């Protein structure tokens, strides 16, 4: 017996069912995969980052000194020249300035 092929809307309903039935990935699995990412992080990069952190720390000291010197400059004027925050951050990723944004540096900033 020949069967009538499914209509376009019936096939679409079947697709929608599969999508709605799709289970969600557990947070534990996501954490496990993230752990895997850390395990495979390139070692050479870790050394480079350590170097950047050193350069960044020196930069932080210099920035603090400059900050004291120009302390009276209104923040509004600084805002006018501030670049896009994400762009600036990520452009710095390969230059070493990123090191001042690392967790250690953040703590350093918070501690004054």
């Amino acid at each position, binding site marked *: 017996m020949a069967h009538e092929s499914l209509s376009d809307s019936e096939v679409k309903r079947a697709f929608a069912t599969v999508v709605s039935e799709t289970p969600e990935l557990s947070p534990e699995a996501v954490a496990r995969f993230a752990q895997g990412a850390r395990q495979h992080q390139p070692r050479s990069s870790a050394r*480079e980052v350590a170097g950047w952190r050193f350069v960044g720390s020196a930069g932080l000291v210099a920035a603090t000194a400059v900050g004291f010197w120009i302390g009276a400059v209104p923040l509004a004027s600084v805002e006018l020249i501030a670049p896009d925050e994400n762009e600036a951050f990520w452009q710095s990723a390969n230059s070493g300035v990123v090191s001042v944004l690392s967790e250690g540096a953040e703590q350093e900033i918070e501690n004054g």
Partner: protein
Amino acid sequence: MSLWRLKKRRGSVRSLATVPDEILLEGYVAGQRGAAEELTRRLAPRAFAQAWRMLGSESDAEDVVQEALLRLWRAAPDWSAGQAQISTWLYRVVANLCIDRQRASRARPSAALDDVPEPVAPGQGADGALDAARRSAALQQALAALPERQTIAVSLRHLEGLTLPEIAEVMECSVEAAESLVARGKRGLAQALAPRREELGYGS
């Protein structure tokens, strides 16, 4: 560099959700731990959904995601701007890994539609005749029975919602070829599912 600007930048670290995948991958290579975690949070659920829809098994899908992400981390140092988008690259890897698994499983008897468990709480009222689990399993079986490239094309178009140009990029073919694969695959599905019309809740 003012403290204000440092704080602004520091704030941007906490809003990685707005950073493009490619930049996050560069951050991963540069040793940014948060970048890998954000990228995983962003990509893994999508890859898992794609794998599950092609394989129908959570454990198999998790294995595929793990392998796909592992390949991404390994490829990361060689990644350069201007290549295919990371999400596109990952779709391709996941699809290939799923096809590999489907090939391997074809040697084994697949689960019959009758093996799909009955729903614990059957329908609500007259409209409850719809059996989502059976419909889903039937479609996945029919998808897996299609020629491989049609399986991938149809899955990417109708389950993952990719556009034809995106599918063409994933499958390394022209947009016209992708369109043809999707159309032929969909026709094949409609015919393969026809004998199961009643099981699918579509009536005779």
